[in-house]
């Protein structure tokens, strides 16, 4: 009986240990919220709600407002989504429904590798390859053909909101593609067979039986991509131009929540300045946590056990 007692103690100790480790994720989320709130308390007290709607960012005179950064984050993420969503869902459709069997594996592998490329490498490539190409070729063309729209007017700088948006698109493409692919794969085969039986073409099967069935899950994939886009830091910082302003032209430089923290945090000279940056981090955290939670709920209620989203 000695042995079984020892076993029972071992069982209880081991279960307790693993439980504590599993509970650490709650500690993490509380810790993140607490640290950011603590860091930003000075700024919150000093600026109140005005912080979110003021567009002054003048560290020398201690005037801080987050609006230009919120604007830049929203615009670059929106551009990223506009480009990435149709492309990645089409790619996911191609990978699951249309591509010849021999091509599916290597293409999927490629897209997975693309997702593993560190952000800083895209930033490096963005600075030295993409931005010069954009300002020399794509941007002048855009201005020629769409110059009547206010978004495509004004002088062309290389680093710009549009360049930031494009790099965001490149970075969230593989993620939305692979989550969407997983969702499309979990659509039951019967669904397709029924449509084929009615004489539908491949595209009709995809549209009627697959895409409409998977709508909710695909929406979740897009929201997951949005969460990533909002928090994307290095690559965007390197190509967006880092200038806190709100302008109509997408060719003008901008600034995002994440990149102002990356650039100015270690140079923040006064307590108020540092605290304002902490508050920017808090805003960013709040938005991304909400967006991610929404994405998880959408993905989890879509198809049950087949889809396990991780970020």
């Amino acid at each position: 009986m000695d042995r079984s007692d020892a076993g029972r103690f071992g069982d209880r100790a081991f279960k307790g240990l693993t439980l504590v480790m599993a509970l650490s994720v709650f500690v993490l989320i509380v810790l993140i919220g607490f640290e950011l709130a603590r860091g930003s308390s000075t700024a919150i007290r000093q600026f109140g709600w005005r912080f979110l709607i003021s567009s002054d960012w003048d560290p020398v005179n201690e005037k801080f407002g987050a609006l230009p950064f919120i604007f830049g984050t929203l615009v670059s993420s929106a551009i990223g989504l506009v480009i990435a969503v149709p492309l990645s869902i089409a790619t996911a459709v191609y990978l699951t429904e249309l591509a010849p069997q021999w091509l599916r594996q290597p293409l999927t592998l490629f897209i997975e590798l693309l997702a593993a490329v560190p952000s800083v490498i895209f930033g490096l490539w963005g600075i030295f390859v993409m931005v010069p190409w954009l300002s020399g070729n794509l941007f002048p063309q855009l201005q020629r053909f769409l110059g009547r729209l206010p978004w495509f007017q004004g002088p062309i700088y290389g680093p710009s909101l549009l360049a930031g948006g494009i790099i965001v698109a490149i970075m969230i493409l593989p993620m939305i593609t692979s989550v969407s692919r997983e969702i499309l794969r979990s659509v039951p085969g019967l669904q397709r067979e029924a449509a084929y039986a009615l004489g539908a073409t491949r595209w009709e099967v995809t549209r009627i039986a697959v895409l409409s069935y998977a709508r909710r899950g695909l929406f979740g994939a897009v929201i997951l991509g949005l969460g990533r886009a909002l928090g994307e830091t290095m690559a965007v910082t390197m190509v967006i131009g880092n200038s806190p302003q709100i302008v109509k032209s997408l060719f003008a430089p901008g600034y995002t929540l994440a990149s102002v923290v990356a650039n100015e945090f270690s140079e923040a000279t006064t307590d108020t300045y540092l605290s304002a940056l902490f508050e920017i981090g808090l805003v960013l955290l709040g938005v991304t946590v909400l967006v991610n939670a929404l994405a998880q709920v959408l993905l989890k209620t879509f198809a049950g056990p087949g889809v396990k989203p991780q970020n």
Partner: protein
Amino acid sequence: MAGCTATAPRVEMTASNHRWRKAKNVCMQTLAFMCAALVILPLLLVLFHLLSQGASSINWAFFTQLPKPVGEVGGGMANAIAGTFILISLASLLGVPVGVLGGIFLSEYTHRRLNRWIRFTADVVNGVPSITWGMVVYGLVVVPMKGFSTLAGALVLGLMMIPLIMRTTEEVLQLVPAGYREAALALGIAQWRMILQIVVRTAMKGVVTGVLLALARVAGETAPLLFTAFGNAYWTHRLTEPIAALPLQIFNYAISPYDDWHRQAWAGALILIFLVSAINLGVRALTRDRFSRTAPQILMPGHHVATEVQPPHGTAG
């Protein structure tokens, strides 16, 4: 056609528009193919430019020498390469045990509601932008210790690894057939020993794969290191000193105005992507011959893990 009920999206599938439907089908298929090509184009371009710009700057000195001061040509990233390895080793001291044990809890002990909340929270924590992690550890470690340090850098990467490893560990452990557990328990072994010696050991390859992918992911992180590890132009001797890391060095060189530093940034990026892809491809090759399906996908969110597990060797005694 009669098959289209009122609730289904209406499609006219009559003989008269057959050719139009066929044409549309071909059009959409071509379009999807072009989208797929466009998606992999950036990767091909990045790889091409990394090779063409970076390869020429990689030489022996790059791996063995410290960075040279501004204006002097040459030097290397020896300290940054070593720094990255030191940081991820220290980070795994925290991330691996906590993540793996937490994953064991999620998979082996079923408290449905609690587990669901842990899972949900882990997924949400995974989505926290890496830059905010840096701020948290800045407040937690750098401010009280009055300086940027190796410790802070390792801590931030370790914390980021926890939810990643927890979720992959859980997924691979759940693939171990329930019969293994029942057989072991029927022989009278204690549950905790059953878990460690049968379940974890059976799924060991999957667990290791998850850990390696988490390492590859944090090895490329720059943002959380900016104000924790901070970077260092020299060798680091103590845990309380700032330390260089490959991604940090790439960033600092890339935004500098010097051509020679730009060349080194390309070379560093080539090394970094080689490291990250080698782990990714290696893990896949490693799991392909023994496991019949795919490895856990922590870099690829949303992947359903379907790893087949090998029976353990000689654990029956």
